[in-house]
């Protein structure tokens, strides 16, 4: 147990570190921060008395090539806080449901349709593999003009987390952050 006197500055340090973390953009979708993306799972003081920090991150996709870059960005941003240890924690697996409301708004303003609920993919659920025909897919609103007259071009886009769509009303192509 730490005394209140010791806890005070410690809490202040954590709060200051959170403030720094909240400013770090995602390297692939820089309009949204790592915190809004929901991949910063925890921040705590190292228990070895060095006053360093431990940041717990979770990967979005198993093979996300930005993982190392994100770790470097976090380390660089927190450089003034002494030792920074980064722990990757896989479970529970990241889901797009952890993207904050603010993050979703920013994605939409940036031209990326935000993800719907991921429960359709809930792991362990008995999932029929009958094909989901294109016509039966939930209509996705175009982030530019709001029209629901859109169609999927490809389930995989410029990064693992996005799919390619096009709007049939304004004719603009756009990306969709896939629910996962």
């Amino acid at each position: 147990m730490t005394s209140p006197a010791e806890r005070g500055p410690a809490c202040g340090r954590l709060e200051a570190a959170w403030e720094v973390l909240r400013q770090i953009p995602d390297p692939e979708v820089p309009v949204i921060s790592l915190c809004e993306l929901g991949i910063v799972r925890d921040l705590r003081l190292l228990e070895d008395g060095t006053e360093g920090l431990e940041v717990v991150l979770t990967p979005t996709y198993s093979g996300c090539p930005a993982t190392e870059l994100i770790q470097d960005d976090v380390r660089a941003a927190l450089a003034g806080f002494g030792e920074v240890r980064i722990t990757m924690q896989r479970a529970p697996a990241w889901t797009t449901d952890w993207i904050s409301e603010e993050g979703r708004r920013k994605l939409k303003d940036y031209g990326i349709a935000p993800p719907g609920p991921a429960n359709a993919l809930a792991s362990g659920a008995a999932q029929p593999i009958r094909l989901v025909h294109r016509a039966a897919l939930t209509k996705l609103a175009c982030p530019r003009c709001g029209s629901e007259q859109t169609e999927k071009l490809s389930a995989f886009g410029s990064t693992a987390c996005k799919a390619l769509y096009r709007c049939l009303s304004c004719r603009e192509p756009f990306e969709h952050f896939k629910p996962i």
Partner: protein
Amino acid sequence: MSQQSIQVGESPQVQYLLRLGDSCLVLAQRICEWSGHAPILEEDLALSNMALDLLGQARALLTHAARLDGQGHDEDQLAFLRDERQYLNPVLMELPRGDFAFTVLRNFAVSTWLLLLWRRLEGSSDAELAAIAGKAVKEAAYHQQHAADWVLRLGDGTEESSARMRAALGTLWPYCNELFDSDAVDAAAAAQGLGPDWASLKDEWRAQFCEVLADAGLDCPKDSAYQSQGRRGIHSEHLGHMLATMQYLQRAYPGGVW
């Protein structure tokens, strides 16, 4: 000075993890061969993205296998410094990429199998393996949907696309047997709660695979007695060539990084 090969231990847990990890790694390498060569740009992106997911899964599994093996190796050493006989993926994964029909049909067969396997592994007694599975299961669901979409489109497409799908099915089918092979490694994994005996996935896999084939107007082939042995390190002539390409840089320039 070129790099010496390494060997992993005989522990059933390590072997079980490598059979799965090598499957993801070898298939990722094969799918990557389409980068810049796929019939349309969207498929180029899709195949590269799926390969990346598989590579990430392989990395996690190999890292964990190396830790359990306890010889101080890391995932890169397991990937780049093991010889062909030390690779434990089923032969299906290493078969040449063939034409686009073969590629999508194999992706469908493998993603359907992986999805069933990952779901079971979410309940593994090994917390790390369960965590890897919890992530991978979501990725595999997208892979399966995408591949099934293509099987339907090509199988039920033109005369040419349908003929190519039938040819692909004839080539691939005998190698699927190995996905449901069963031996002492499976028995040990099942007994410890590490993961299922692969044979236990067969009925479900077959039902799902043949259902989509039927929708695509393709007949489920007759059973084959052929039993490939990649899980025991006995591979086709194709893996050695693939590893030569894949491992060359690390062998020639040990520890080289970007």
